[in-house]
C-alpha cells in the first residue's frame, strides 16, 4: 500500500485542501464544555483525583483507587479509609477519526487529478486541527482502515484504526493520506477501534456510505467522551444521482458495477434512500449522545467559513472562544 496518493497532481490538490483548512481553522477554536484552572501539568482542571497541589475534598475509597492517595491520618482517627482528592490538572484531547476508505477521495468526474470530496475532508481536518490547537487541545488523528505508517518507517500498516503520524506543528510537513483502504469504516472499527483517551473530544469524518450497523461505531465514539461529533462528508453527486439515461455505476471501493436506467422516479427513490440512511445514523448518534452533522463537500470547498459547525457550537471564532 502506498503512503502517498497514486498521482502527484491529486496529492498536491489534497495538500492544498489541508493547508487551506489549516489557515481557515486558525480563525476558530474548538468549543469545550468544561471549565477549570490551568495547572502546570495540563491546560485544564478536571474533577477527579489528580496530581495538582490544590486539595479538593475527601471521599470514600473505591476499589482500584491509588493507595498513594489514601489519607492515612484520617483513617487512623476514624478507622475509615478516605481518599484525598485534589484538583486534577489535565490537557484536553481531541481524537479525530478519518474514514480512510477510497470513497473519501472520490475523483471528480471532469478531472481525474482532483477530488473535491478528499480535498474537503482534508480542509475540514486542517481546520479542526488548527481550531483545536487554538483551544490548547492535544490532537490525535486516526485513520480508519489501512493507512500511513510511522513517519520514519513510511510503511503501510495493516487494517483497523491507526494513528495518523503527524510530525506536529504546521501541517505543511504532514504526509497526505492516500485514502486507499479497502476496509470500510465499520470493518476498521470492528477489527481495531481507536484507543480513545477517556473524557476526550471525538470527531469522526466519513461519508457513512457503507452497510453496517451504526450502533457499535457510535457507541465506540461516544463511550467515555466529553463530546462526540460525527461529520458526514458527501459529494453533491452522492446526494443526487445523475440525469436521465443508462448508467453503469461502479463502486469506488469494491469495483462492483450495476447497470441502471435513471429516470425521475429513480431519482426520487434515490433521494428517499439517502434520507433513510442518514436518518439511521442520525438516530444512532443521538441515542449515544453524539452530534450527526451532514456536510456537502462542494460547500466546504467553496466557502471560506465553517458555518454549519459554528451553528452547532462545535467551533467558534477565536474572539468568542473561551480560553
Amino acid at each position, binding site marked *: 500500500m502506498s503512503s502517498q496518493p497514486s498521482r502527484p497532481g491529486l496529492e498536491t490538490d489534497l495538500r492544498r485542501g489541508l493547508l487551506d483548512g489549516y489557515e481557515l481553522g486558525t480563525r476558530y477554536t474548538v468549543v469545550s464544555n468544561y471549565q477549570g484552572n490551568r495547572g502546570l501539568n495540563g491546560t485544564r482542571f478536571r474533577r477527579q483525583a489528580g496530581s495538582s497541589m490544590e486539595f479538593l475534598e475527601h471521599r470514600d475509597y473505591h476499589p482500584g483507587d491509588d493507595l498513594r492517595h489514601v489519607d492515612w491520618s484520617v483513617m487512623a482517627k476514624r478507622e475509615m479509609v478516605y481518599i484525598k482528592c485534589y484538583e486534577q490538572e489535565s490537557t484536553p484531547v481531541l481524537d479525530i477519526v478519518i474514514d480512510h476508505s477510497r470513497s473519501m477521495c472520490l475523483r471528480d468526474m471532469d478531472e481525474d487529478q482532483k477530488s473535491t470530496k478528499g480535498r474537503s475532508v482534508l480542509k475540514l481536518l486542517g481546520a479542526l486541527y488548527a481550531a483545536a490547537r487554538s483551544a490548547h487541545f492535544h490532537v490525535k488523528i486516526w485513520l480508519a482502515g489501512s493507512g500511513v505508517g510511522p513517519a520514519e518507517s513510511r510503511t503501510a500498516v495493516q487494517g483497523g484504526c491507526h494513528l495518523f503520524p503527524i510530525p506536529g506543528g504546521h501541517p505543511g510537513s504532514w504526509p497526505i493520506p492516500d485514502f486507499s483502504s479497502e476496509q470500510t469504516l465499520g470493518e476498521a472499527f470492528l477489527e481495531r477501534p481507536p484507543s480513545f483517551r477517556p473524557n476526550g473530544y471525538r470527531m469522526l469524518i466519513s461519508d457513512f456510505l457503507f452497510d453496517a450497523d451504526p450502533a457499535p461505531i457510535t457507541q465506540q465514539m461516544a463511550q467515555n467522551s466529553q463530546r462526540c461529533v460525527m461529520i458526514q462528508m458527501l459529494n453533491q453527486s452522492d446526494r443526487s444521482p445523475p440525469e436521465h439515461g*443508462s448508467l453503469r455505476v461502479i463502486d469506488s*471501493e469494491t469495483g462492483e458495477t450495476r447497470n441502471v*436506467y435513471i429516470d425521475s422516479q429513480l431519482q426520487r427513490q434515490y433521494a428517499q434512500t439517502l434520507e433513510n440512511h442518514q436518518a439511521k445514523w442520525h438516530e444512532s448518534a443521538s441515542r449515544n449522545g453524539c452530534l450527526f452533522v451532514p456536510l456537502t463537500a462542494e460547500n466546504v470547498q467553496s466557502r471560506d467559513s465553517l458555518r454549519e459547525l459554528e451553528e452547532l457550537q462545535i467551533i467558534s471564532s477565536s474572539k468568542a472562544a473561551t480560553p
Partner: protein
Amino acid sequence: MPFFLNPFAFAALSAVPVLVGIYYLRNRFRKRVVSSLILWEALVKSHEGGQKKDQLQLPLLFFLEILAIVCLGFAATQPFFKTTNNRIPVTVILDDSFSLLASETGNGEDSVQQELKEALSELVSRNLYEFEFMLAGEFPSRIGEATARTSREVDAALANWKCEQSNANLDAAIEEVKKMHTGNHRILVLTDEAPSLDYLRQDRELHWISRGKHLKNLAISFAARSPITTAPNQGQQLLVRLDRYAGKEESGTDALPPSSVDILIRRLEDESLIVRNSTRLSPGTSSEIMLKLPDEASGSDLIVEVEDDALQLDNRITLLAEKKAELSVYLSIDDPNYRQLWQEALNVLPQVQINRLPASEADLVISQKDYIPRDEQWHIYCPPQKKPVAFAGPYALSSDHPLVRGLPINNSIWAADPSAGEELYLEIEAERTTAEAQETPPGSPRRARPRSVLRSGQTDLVSETNLRRGGKRIRINLSPEFSTVQLSPPSWLILVVNLIQWKEAHLHGPEFTNTWRNRQTVRFPLDTTEALLTHPSGEKSSIQVIGGQARIETPEVGVWSITSASGGPSGGPATDPWRWSFFALSSSESDLSTATSETFDNWQELESEKRIHFRPFDWLFGLIAFSLVVVCCLFHNRKAG
C-alpha cells in the same frame, strides 16, 4: 401503385442507420464511479421490474423518429398516384352494324368486332381512361350502367355489343356525345370505316379505330313479299335483290366471270324447301329477282337464304306472313257526289270495310254532322259548305305530316267555307277547356288545340284535334263543287290513302311485320300497362306500355314476339302474340370495299396529359413527418421534465 418523380431522394433513407447508430451510442451505459453502491442496490433491484416500461418508452421514440425520417425521405421523392379519379373520361361509340361481323374464316374469331375489342383492350391496359359505351345503331343508345375502368368491367359492358344492325349512324352518335359531355371528354369510335376529313381536322378529342376487312361478299340487299295485285287472289310474290361485291383481290379487275348463285326459299317452321332459284352474278353486279310464291306458301313464314360467305347475316333473312288487317269505316255523307268521292277512294284499299259495322264500332267515322268518337276512334268531320271560297295552291304547314306525304296540291284549287263548322269548333273548344281543368287520365294523350295541316290564307282546310283516350277528329273543309282537288285523282286518292294508312298505323299490333329498323312500335289497347317480349334467342323480358304504345329496341336479328301481360293482342286470352321479323339488310354495310383498317389518332396530346393528371401526395408524408416530429418533441420535453 405509387410512382416517384425523384427516386434519388431515397438516399435520404441512409439517415436511418445513422439514427440507429446514434441510439446505439446514446443507449450505451455511461460509466460512473460512485462512493458506494449501498444506495443503488435497492434501486437496481426494484428498478428491474420497471425498467421494461422504460425500455418500451425508448423504442417507441426511436421508432417514431425512424418513421419521421422515412416519411421525410418519401416526401423528398415526390411520390404520386395515377389516381382513378383523374382518368380521362372516354365515350366509346360502337359501330353495331352487321358489317363488323365480317370474317375471313367465318367462325368469328378473326372478325372485325373481335379485332376492335383487342384494340380497345390495349387502351384499357394503359389505365389512363374510364370508358362509357354507346351503340351507334340507327339511334344512339348507351350500354352498360357505370363507367368501366378495368378489363373485366369493359368486357362486361361489351357483352351487349351485338353487331346486327342494318345501319350505324356514327355521326349522330358523335353529336350526341358532344352534346352530353364537354371539356376534357374524349370520344373513341370503333368501326370498320374511315372517318370524314372534318373529324380528323377539327376534333382533337376524337380517336378513331377502324379494323375493316375488304372481303368479297354476296348479300341479300333487299327482300319483300307482297300480294300480286294485277288480279285478285293471285297469291304472293317475293322480290329479292342480290348484290355480289368484289373482294380486295378482285377489285380493279375487269370482266370477271359470273358465277352461279342459288336462292333458297324455305318454310320457317320446318325449314322445308319451297322454291330454289338460280341466277348468275359477276363480282360488282347486282340482280333483282321476282319469285311467285306457291299458293300453299302464301300464308307461311319464310326464310330466304343464299350461300354463306364473309358476312353471314346478309345471307339469310326471315319474312313473316303479313296479317291482313281490316279497317272498318262508317261513311255518313249526305251529299251524293261527295259521298261517291269518298267511296271511290276507299274502295281502292282492300283492307277497308265500308259501313259493315255501326258507327259506334267502326274504326273511322266519316260524317258531315257532329259526332263524339269513342276511345281510339277517329272522326273525319266534313262540315257542310254554305259559302265556299276557292283557294288556289293551299299549302301544308308540315311536309312530314302523315296526311300530306306525297300530296301534289300546288296547282289545284281547294274550295272551302271559312266559317264552316264553327259551331262545332266552339263546342270542341269548350270541351277541351273543361277537360284541361280536370286531371288528365293516365295514358291519355294531352289534347291540344286544332292543329292546322293544310291551310290557305286564314282558313284551315285540313286540321286535326286529339281527343281523349286516343280519339282524334280530323276536319276536312272541302267543297267539292268548286274544287279541282277531287278532279285530280292522285291528289284526292293520296289524301285518302294517307288517312287510312295513318289510322292503320294506330291499330293494335306492331308497326312493321318485316323490318330492318331496330326500333319497333307496338300498339296495345289503352288499358294495357305491361307487355311480355320474347327475343329471338328465347329470352323473355317485361316492358312497360305507356299510352297504349310500347317502343322496343331490337338489337338482335330474328323473330320477335310480344303479348300483353294481361292477355292476348285483342285483349282476350294470351294465345296469339304479335310477331315481327327484324333482319339486317343494307347494301352499304354488305359492301365491304369501303372498309379500312387504320387508326386515326387525334389523342397524341394525351401522353403529355399524363403528368397533369397524376396526383402527388408528398404533402401527406410531410404532414406525417411533421406530426411525428411534434410528438417526438413532446416526448423529449416530458422526459426532461
